[in-house]
C-alpha cells in the first residue's frame, strides 16, 4: 500500500489544475488571476455571476473553484454552492473555496449543512491561499480512492478503504469517519452507522454527526430517539433545514401528524422556496384537514414551480382537491383548466384533470358533466402506462361516487398491494375511505390486500428455509411479475435470485431478471437503500464468477 501523506504539506503543482474564479467585481477577478498565476496556475476561467458560473461548470469540470460569497444582488455564493450540489454538478473531488469579507463571515460559517471545503477571509495573501489550497489538494487526494469507489457505486469496498485509511488518518480523521457513516447509511448497515456517529459524538458535539445518528436511529425504527436528535439539531442550529424535514418525517412515523405540520410550517417560514417541503406541508395539512394551510402550500408549489421544471400535473390536482374539499367548485375546476394548459394536454395531465373534473362536477350537482368526465377518466386510467398513487386514489374515489364499486375496489387493492409497506400511502388510502364514510370497509380492504403480499413473502421465506431455494425464487419471481410496482416484492425476488446464484453459480437468465428488477427500482427511487445494497451484491457476484459487465 502506498505511504499515507502526512499532515505536512506535500507541494502541489498548480500548473495542471483548472481554476474557476467567481466574483462580481472585475477588479477582484483580475487580481485573483494574478494571485493564482503567482502560485503557478495557468488554466484559469472567470465567471461574473451565478448563471455564468453554471454555464462554465456544465461545460468543463474544474479542480478548484474560488467563489466570492457576495455575487451582487442575485444569488450569493452559498446558494450557488447548494444548487451545484443539489444538481450534482460538482464532484466530491472538486475543491470549492468560499472567499468572504469579514462582514459576511458569520453567514458563511453558519452554513453547517452544506459547507464549502474551506473559506478565506479577505484580505489574504497569496501565500496563505497557496497553503490552504495545498492542504485541500492533499486531503482530496488522500480521499480519492474512496470517492472513486463511490462513483462506481461500490460502497462496501469504499467502507473497507475508509477502515484501512483510518489506521493512519491524521488530520483526515473526521473526514474519513463522516464518509464512513454516510456509506454505512447508504448500504443500510444502520447499526454500524450508528456506532460511527456515536463514536464521533463522544469526541465532540458536531451537528452533522448528531444528524447521522438520528437518521440511523430513524431507519432502525427507534423513532423516539431519532426525534430527540433532530429536535436537538433544530434547537442548536436553526438554519439546518433538512433536520426539520427529518423531524417532521419522524413525527409522522410516530403518528403525530399535528406535530409534523408544526415543524414543516416552521421550516417553510424560514425557507419557503423548497418545493418538496411545500408539498410535504400541503399533504400533511390536507391530512390534518387544515385546508387553508394546505391551499397556501400547494399554491406556493405551483408558483415556485412555474419557473423550474419541477412542477407536475399532480401538484395542480393537489390544489384542486383542496378547493373541492372546501366546496369552491369553480376554483377547483379552473385549477385543472390551468393544468391542461401548462402541460399542453399531455396524457398524464388529461388523466388527472378528467378524474378531478368528474369528482368536482359530481359534488357540484352537474350529473351529466360528471358522467362524461368519469367515462373519459376510466378510459384514460385503463390505458395509462404510469398510474401514480395520487391519481389512483382519486380514481378510487371517483369510482365509488359513480357507483362503479367493483372497479374502485380493484384499483384500491392494487394500490395497496404495490405499496404494502409504504405507511404514508396506506394512511392516505385509509383516510380517503374515511372521507367517503366507508372507514371500516377501507380498513378491511387495506388489511386483506397487504396480508396477501405478506403471506406470499412468508411462503417464499419458508421454502427457502426448508432448503428449496429454487422454489422460493420461482414464487417470488411470479409475485414480482404481478406486482411490478412494489419495490419490496421486486427487491425480494432480486435478493432471492442473488442468494441462489451465490450458492449454485452464475445463471445468465436469472441475472438478466435481476438486472430488470434492479433497473425498475432504480428508475422509481435511485437512492432506495435495499436497491443500492443489492446492486453492490450483484457487482460482487459478477466479479466473483468472472462475468464481464
Amino acid at each position: 500500500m502506498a505511504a499515507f501523506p502526512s499532515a505536512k504539506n506535500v507541494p502541489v503543482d498548480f500548473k495542471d489544475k483548472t481554476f474557476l474564479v467567481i466574483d462580481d467585481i472585475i477588479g477582484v477577478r483580475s487580481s485573483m488571476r494574478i494571485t493564482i498565476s503567482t502560485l503557478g496556475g495557468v488554466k484559469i476561467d472567470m465567471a461574473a455571476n451565478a448563471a455564468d458560473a453554471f454555464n462554465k461548470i456544465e461545460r468543463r469540470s474544474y479542480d478548484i473553484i474560488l467563489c466570492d460569497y457576495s455575487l451582487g444582488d442575485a444569488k450569493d455564493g452559498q446558494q450557488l454552492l447548494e444548487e451545484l450540489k443539489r444538481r450534482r454538478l460538482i464532484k466530491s473531488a472538486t475543491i470549492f473555496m468560499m472567499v468572504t469579507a469579514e462582514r459576511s463571515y458569520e453567514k458563511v460559517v453558519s452554513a453547517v449543512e452544506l459547507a464549502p471545503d474551506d473559506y478565506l477571509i479577505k484580505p489574504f495573501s497569496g501565500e496563505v491561499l497557496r497553503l490552504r489550497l495545498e492542504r485541500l489538494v492533499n486531503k482530496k487526494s488522500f480521499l480519492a480512492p474512496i470517492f472513486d469507489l463511490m462513483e462506481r457505486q461500490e460502497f462496501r469496498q469504499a467502507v473497507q478503504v475508509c477502515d484501512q485509511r483510518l489506521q493512519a488518518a491524521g488530520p483526515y480523521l473526521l473526514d474519513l469517519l463522516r464518509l464512513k457513516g454516510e456509506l454505512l447509511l447508504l448500504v443500510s448497515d444502520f447499526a454500524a452507522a450508528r456506532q460511527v456517529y456515536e463514536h464521533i459524538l463522544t469526541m465532540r458535539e458536531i451537528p452533522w454527526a448528531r444528524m447521522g445518528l438520528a437518521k440511523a436511529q430513524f431507519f432502525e425504527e427507534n423513532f423516539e430517539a431519532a426525534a430527540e436528535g433532530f429536535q436537538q439539531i433544530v434547537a442548536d442550529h436553526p438554519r439546518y433545514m433538512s433536520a426539520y424535514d427529518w423531524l417532521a418525517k419522524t413525527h409522522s412515523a410516530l403518528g403525530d401528524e399535528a406535530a409534523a405540520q408544526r415543524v414543516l410550517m416552521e421550516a417553510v417560514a424560514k425557507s419557503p422556496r423548497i418545493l418538496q417541503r411545500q408539498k410535504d406541508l400541503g399533504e400533511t395539512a390536507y391530512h390534518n384537514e387544515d385546508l387553508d394551510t394546505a391551499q397556501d402550500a400547494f399554491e406556493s408549489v405551483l408558483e415556485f414551480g412555474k419557473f423550474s421544471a419541477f412542477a407536475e400535473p399532480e401538484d395542480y390536482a393537489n390544489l384542486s382537491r383542496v378547493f373541492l374539499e372546501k366546496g369552491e367548485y369553480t376554483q377547483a375546476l379552473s385549477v385543472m383548466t390551468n393544468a391542461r394548459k401548462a402541460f399542453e394536454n399531455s396524457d398524464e395531465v388529461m388523466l388527472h384533470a378528467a378524474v378531478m373534473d368528474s369528482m368536482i362536477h359530481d359534488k357540484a350537482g352537474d350529473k351529466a358533466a360528471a358522467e362524461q368526465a368519469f367515462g373519459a377518466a376510466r378510459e384514460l386510467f385503463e390505458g395509462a402506462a404510469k398510474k401514480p398513487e395520487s391519481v389512483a386514489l382519486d380514481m378510487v374515489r371517483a369510482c365509488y361516487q359513480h357507483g362503479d364499486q367493483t372497479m374502485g375496489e380493484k384499483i384500491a387493492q392494487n394500490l395497496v398491494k404495490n405499496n404494502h409497506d409504504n405507511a404514508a400511502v396506506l394512511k392516505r388510502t385509509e383516510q380517503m375511505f374515511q372521507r367517503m364514510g366507508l372507514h371500516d370497509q377501507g380498513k378491511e380492504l387495506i388489511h386483506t390486500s397487504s396480508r396477501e403480499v405478506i403471506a406470499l413473502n412468508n411462503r417464499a421465506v419458508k421454502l427457502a428455509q426448508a432448503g428449496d431455494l429454487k422454489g422460493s425464487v420461482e414464487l417470488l419471481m411470479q409475485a414480482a411479475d404481478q406486482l411490478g410496482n412494489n419495490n419490496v416484492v421486486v427487491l425480494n425476488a432480486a435478493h432471492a435470485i442473488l442468494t441462489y446464484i451465490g450458492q449454485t453459480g452464475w445463471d445468465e437468465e436469472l441475472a438478466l431478471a435481476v438486472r430488470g428488477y434492479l433497473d425498475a427500482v432504480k428508475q422509481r427511487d435511485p437512492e432506495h437503500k435495499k436497491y443500492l445494497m443489492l446492486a453492490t451484491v450483484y457487482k460482487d457476484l459478477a466479479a466473483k464468477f468472472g462475468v464481464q459487465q
Partner: protein
Amino acid sequence: MTIAGGGDKVPGALDFATLFAANTHEIKNQLFLLLNAVEQASREHWASEYPSARIALDGLKQGGTQISQRLTRLLALYRISQGHYQLDIAYHGAAELLEEVLLEIQPLLGARAVEMTVASTDEVYGFFDREMVRGILLNAVHNALNVAVRKISLNAAMEDGYLCIRVADDGPGFPPQVLETGMAQAKWNMGGGGTGLGLHFSATAAALHRNQGNSGFIRLSNEGALRGAVFSLYLP
C-alpha cells in the same frame, strides 16, 4: 457619570455599545481602504528606489495591520457579549495553524531581527474555531515581538487532554504584578491600552471553547524555554 442616550431613560435612543460597535466597524473598513492605498504606494517604483520611503511604508503597514487586528478583537468581544458570535468549531491540525501564523508574522521579523521557531509534531490535532484561535495567537506573538531580544518560539502539544499552544520569548518576562493578579489585571488595564484588551479577548475566546464540561483558558508565566514570558492557550 451617565452618558446621554446610554440608558433606557431616553426613548428610542441607541445604546452606546451598539453605536460604538457600528462605528468601529466603519473605522475598520476605512482602515482597510487606507492599507490598500499604502500597499499600492509600496508597489510604485520610487518606493524601491528610496529605502527610507520603503521603511516608512512598511511601518505604516505594520501599524495599520495591528490597529486593524485590535479593532477585530474589539468587534469580536462585542459580538460575544451580545451572544451573537457564531463559533465555528472544526477539527484542525495544530501544525497547520502554526504554519499560518508564522507566514503572517514573517514580514515583521526581519525589521526586528527576531527569529521565530515553530515546533509541533504532526500528530497534534484538536477541535477549535480556527479564526478565533489564530487571532489569539497573532495577538500573543505581536506582544512577544514587542519585548523579545532575539527569539520567539511557538509550539503545540497535548497536555492532560487539552491542546496546549505556547508562545515564549527571550524578553524580560511579564511584570510580577501581571502574574500575581492575572486576568483581573488584564481587565483593569483594558482602558489604558497595553496588553489588557488582547488578554481579555484571549481569555474570553478561549473560554468559548467547551467540551464535556471543560472550558478553554489561558495562562501566563515566566521562565520558559527561552527564559522570558510564556503565554499558554489551553483548549479542551
